[in-house]
């Protein structure tokens, strides 16, 4: 029997993988992928809560769809930024993107 806890464990695991990717990866595209993973981990949690706690209402599912839409927009903007930086500097290593500091 698969319970709510299994879903939450999966969501937590996915979130941690995504967080690790976002913080530790050097490639900008990989960082974006990590952020996507974190968003989807949250989506799993939302849907699971909706199914197990309030099956009569679809709030969680609708919310998940909103997240997917926002994530798509965010990826579009993020990839555009990465693409421009890459064109300019022929590099997409985030360690080198430190020109906003003093």
């Amino acid at each position, binding site marked *: 029997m698969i319970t709510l806890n299994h879903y939450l464990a999966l969501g937590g695991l996915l979130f941690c993988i995504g967080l690790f990717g976002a913080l530790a990866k050097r490639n900008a595209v990989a960082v974006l992928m990590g952020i996507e993973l974190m968003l989807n981990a949250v989506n799993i949690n939302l849907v699971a809560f909706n199914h197990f706690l309030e099956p009569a209402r679809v709030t969680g599912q609708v919310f998940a769809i909103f997240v997917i839409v926002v994530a798509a927009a965010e990826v579009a903007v993020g990839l555009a930024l990465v693409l421009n930086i890459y064109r300019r500097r022929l590099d997409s290593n985030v*360690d080198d993107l*430190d020109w906003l500091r003093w």
Partner: protein
Amino acid sequence: MIKYAWLIPVFPAVAFPIIIFLTRKVRLLSALVAIAAIAASFVMAVGVLREVFLLGVTMEKPVEYAAPWLQIPGLLKIEAGILIDPLAAVMLLVVTLVALLVEIYSVGYMHGDPGFSSFFSYLSLFSASMLGLVLANNYFMIFFFWELVGLCSYLLIGFYYHKHSAARAGLKAFVTNRVADFGFMLGFFFLFAMFGTFNFRELAEAIPGYQNTGFLALAAALVFIGPIGKSAQFPLHVWLPDAMEGPTPVSALIHAATMVAAGVYLLARAFVLFASLPGIMLLVAYVGGFTALFSATIAVAQRDIKRILAYSTMSQLGYMVMAMGVGSMTAGMFHLMTHAFFKALLFLGAGSVIHALEEQDIFRMGGLYKDMKVTASTFIIAALALAGLPPLAGFWSKDEILAAAFDHGFTGLYILGTLVAFLTAFYMFRLIFVAFFGNRRAGLHGHESPLTMTIPLLILAVLSVVAGFVGTPFASHGFSTFVYYGEPHHVEPNYAVMLLSTLVALAGIGLAWLLYGRPSDVPEKLATRYRSIYTLLVNKFYIDEIYMWLFRRVVLGLSEAFNWHDRHVVDGIFDGVGDLTRISGQKLRFLQTGNLQTYALVIFTAVVIIALWMAAPVLGGVIQ
């Protein structure tokens, strides 16, 4: 007329801008405007004095008109008002009369001077300030005009501003007076703090019942510093001899009516304050007495005709202040009045001589009597009045001071005053015998001055003779029943005092004749024999030098110390704060890596910590 008394200072005050802005180019018109204004004031002053008599205005029942000028309810009330009592009425008359005569005289004296018009505008402003001071009904107003008088004296003493010494003398007068004015200002602010009013009459009612005499004495002593400066009392007298750098009519005005009289007048106005404090009265009396003797001794050794007169003024002012101090306001004011006439005459006469010879050293003059009969004879009348020979004006007033000192038990001051009378007669007749008689020494020939100059001399000569009669002890309703403090009183003639002072004056004249009346080498011998005393007197007891030394050592030394403190301590603190900010900024900026992932890690860690913190109750207090 008395209702419109406020117009008296307004006339000359209005003449000042008119001359400056309109008639500057037309010289004679400028003089005419100034003279017309002061003449109008004089006529008003006569009218006011007449009404004071007719309406029975006395010292207890003065007339006061006032309008609120600056008001902060419950905190501050300053009036613009006038107070007319016999004291003010007499002063108004003296000031307007002397100022009028001096201005007429100046037409002749300043003839041909490029600053002719501005000279008359300054004279007008000077008279206006003094008249305002006389009429003021509260300390704040009197201080306002007091400062204006100081300003005008600066302008007029430094009138020949292209001359370095004149510019310096003006500055010296101004700065010395500022020192004194500061004391005066503190004094009446103290009075305001104690009584909550600046008004003379309200203060006169409140002061006698006041218990905290220590504080009151402090205020009175501070107020007294004002007259010390303005009336050139020791130790703030140094500006007066230097003020001789101004044109001679200005010296006459300063010494007779407008400037130095202000200090004595303030003492009379504030008499109730001093009268309630015996200790301060004693201080006033001894400062006056000491100044009288101190400056009379200096006058004996001076060679410059105007400087001799300047030290004589200081000495006579010392008499007046001493009279106030021994408790006779009447005698002080009486002497102020008579002195105004004969000292103005002396200065105008000296001006006439200087105008003719362009020389101020009396030992380069001689035999002037033959050339300038009017100037010389009026000068001699004034000198006799100053020496105090009966029945001239100075005799009655000086005698009243001496009698007051004697009657109030100040025997020491009485003897000192008599000694000063002897010295006065001596140095005045030394001047006269040397300058007006004997042989022409430097081949300088005098010539009589024009009528605009001699007519004021003649008028003042008449006044120097008759002005004393209003206050003789033989007149039944004299000056003492008119201007007084406390009760109107009749002064009994004190024949012993009169006789002694007359004898002393004659002795002074006699000694002057013996030493200077004929060619002799006795003065030189005396000067060589008592070399040290003579040098001390010629150099005015080195007071100026002492002040310069004090200034260099104390003031400049303190300035050095404050400069160091400012540079190193005060600036150090502010520079330190600046450096701290700059250096900490320099070090702390390395916290900003610019690496997005580092920021994200920090933010995430913070979120985790906050989440755990908030979840602590649910987790069963694992963290806490």
